[in-house]
């Protein structure tokens, strides 16, 4: 059996809009890395490796980590570059987890870049991820993908557009309490319903912003973790799933690949009743409807029943299972960083260090999720816990 691996530190840069960003990429990286390492009284040279993730097409600069002088290259650290699109942060974390569990390294920094702040036309870049013969000419971009799932969901289960607004308002209320969130307006149900229609049935406030900021996580072996912190958060299971490249095979009704991945991880961790077994969840929700699909895929409720959890406050702060207490990707999306942030947020909640958006009680176990690739080809999922 592999040895245990823990999150011992989390670092964020400040988050803002890409239009207001004035920092250079290495400044953003340094501030996130310093926040994580200073808290642990570590220097970069004490690490064994850095796992970096970004999407080069967004960066305006290919493989920029090779030249950004902030990842310990002067100490000879290997800077390992992982890129799986929107799930990149989760994939990088998984890679670092493997390296430590395999006893190759003791301390690894996982960095997920701020990827949107240099791109001129983000949707054009995203469009190139589609099949070049059949799907790319359709002009598919991120928002249209979200809308396909939303329209199919409403049609199939007979829900109204208001359910999407209710879901979005919950995330906005959560984000208002998170000092690291980009959108902290606390938009209400009425605000969301009044926002402009962008791609039916998705309204502006049901769609994530383009944010700028970065996230990093320090992972450690059990022996190092216990020396570095009194609040290690263990990654009990982590994995990913891969769908077909051509997306015409998908039903756009549910995240079936996520359900299969969850079943695999749940069996590893003896999770039988997810709604009760988890104390906190951070799920990738660039569009409000994705959070509903994720409740169902992760077994929080049956198919078509997710809006009931929102209506009943089950997943709100103070509910049985607070989901996205950070406000989620809906309120802060700086590209690849958003996928690592889901894991970072679960970790800080379990450490009890989430500040104003800390969930109540003493959370012991949480689940984190990331989504990305051509029309959602990939999912990343992890289960984290505290002793």
């Amino acid at each position, binding site marked *: *059996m*592999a040895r245990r691996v823990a999150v011992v530190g989390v670092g964020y840069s400040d988050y803002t809009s890409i239009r207001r960003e004035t920092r250079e990429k290495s400044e953003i990286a340094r501030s996130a890395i310093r926040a994580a390492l200073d808290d642990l009284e570590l220097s970069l040279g004490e690490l064994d*490796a850095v796992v970096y993730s970004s*999407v*080069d*097409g*967004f960066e*305006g*600069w*290919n*493989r*920029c*980590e*090779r*030249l950004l*002088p902030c*990842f310990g*290259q*002067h100490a*000879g*650290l*290997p*800077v*390992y*570059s*992982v*890129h*799986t*699109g929107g799930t990149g942060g989760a*994939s990088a974390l*998984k*890679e670092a*987890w*493997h*390296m430590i*569990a*395999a*006893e*190759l390294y003791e301390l690894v920094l996982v960095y997920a870049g701020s990827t949107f702040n240099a791109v001129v036309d983000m949707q054009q*870049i*995203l469009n*190139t*991820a589609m099949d*070049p013969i059949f799907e790319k000419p359709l002009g598919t971009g991120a928002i249209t993908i979200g809308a396909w799932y939303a329209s199919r969901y409403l049609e199939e289960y007979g829900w109204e557009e208001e359910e999407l607004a209710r879901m979005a308002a919950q995330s906005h209320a959560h984000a208002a309490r998170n000092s690291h969130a980009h959108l902290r307006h606390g938009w209400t149900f009425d605000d969301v319903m009044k926002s402009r229609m962008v791609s039916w049935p998705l309204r502006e406030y049901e769609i994530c912003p383009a944010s700028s900021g970065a996230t990093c996580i320090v992972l450690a072996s059990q022996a190092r973790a216990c020396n570095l912190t009194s609040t290690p958060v263990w990654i009990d299971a982590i*994995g*990913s*799933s*891969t*769908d*077909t*490249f051509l997306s015409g095979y998908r039903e756009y009704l549910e995240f079936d*690949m996520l359900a*299969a991945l969850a079943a695999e991880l749940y069996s590893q961790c003896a999770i039988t009743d997810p709604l009760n077994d988890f104390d906190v969840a951070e799920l990738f929700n660039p569009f409000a409807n994705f959070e509903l699909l994720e409740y169902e895929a992760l077994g929080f409720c049956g198919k078509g029943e997710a809006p009931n959890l929102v209506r009943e406050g089950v997943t709100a702060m103070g509910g049985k299972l607070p989901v996205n207490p950070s406000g989620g990707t809906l309120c802060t999306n700086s590209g690849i960083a958003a996928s690592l942030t889901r894991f970072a947020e679960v970790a800080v909640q379990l450490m009890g260090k989430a500040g104003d958006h800390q969930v109540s009680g003493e959370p012991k176990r949480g689940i984190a999720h990331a989504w*990305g*690739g*051509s029309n959602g*080809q*990939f999912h990343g999922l992890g289960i984290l816990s505290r002793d």
Partner: protein
Amino acid sequence: MQSPRVAIVGYALEPYSGVSAGYAEELGYRVVRCAREQAGVSREQVSSVHNSTMDLFDGVTISNGILGPAAGGYGRDSTRVQNGGVFAVISACAAILSGASEVAVVSSADTVTTDLLSVSNFSSSVYFEQPLGLNFLTSYALFSSAWMDRCQFSEDVIAAAAENSFRSGAANEYAHVKDGLSRYDVLKSDLIAWPLRAHTVAMQHSYGAAAVILAAESAAEKFEVEPVFVSGFGMSTFADDLDDWLAMSAVRKSAAAAYAMAGVTSPAAAVAVEINAPFAPFEVAAYSALGLCSQGSEAELLRSAATGGNGMRINPSGGTLCTNAPNSGGLFRVVQAAMALQDAPSRGRKRAIVHDSDLSLGVAGSSHAVLVLEKG
């Protein structure tokens, strides 16, 4: 106690050439299928897929979306590593050694025509280097001139290294360039960026594909081949600093880590050494950094390798000068080293060494890895 090992139970190559023979998913599927069949591994037995590609060499973003399913990744755990094929092999080894994966596919393909000079320019510093037009060729030339000046190397040694590669490439059915150029051809070729000549730097883009199937040592006996084992590996990254470049610090650190893990005390006792050297001066600089000889005795090492006198072959594949595949070159070299190891008469030699890097983007900030393979 011996470190745990990972077995290479299957591998395959699509022959490399100057013309792409199909789409990434076609070549990627064919080569993985061939490797799986060689090993007797079914798709259901594959636990994880590890691709080695870069978006800019594929012309699309998130390009592992294409290659991953073609490698058998549907419904499986998958990832993509951008530093090179050896790094993807290390990713698979880590997954296996951690217990997260039992059988892993590593694959890569070069199928899309790109402007390699522009890609490397786009990979240099936005503020200072891109506007100057720095690209892989100019960065190789800067490194070469500084290094040759510092170490007092003559062009003859560089040409001898190139000749060694071209001779091996001519005899390799999978290599792209099979011209078998002599050192005199090399020295007569045009000077294209001083001190680099047309035949001391790889300017061509080689198209093809490569795949390796890895398995936990405990699972390897289930399969149909006598495996080659990955017994050590190491990685390091150059800082964007001239002294760091010239000291070859990342190559030295990678090699030291790999040799320590594999228990290698005499790297020169390897059957074969594959070095990712897209320009010949880098290959010669790597000899001492990899511990194959002491600094200053590179010419002697080359003479021995060329005549087979010391039993070790350097770049038996023809090296990067003959097959310059930015996505799949690292994996190509792993397969070639495994083949050299399995084909070689034993004579007490049981190891091969593979070096890899992302030098195709230019020298600065490049990452390096060293892999040690050994027979059963």
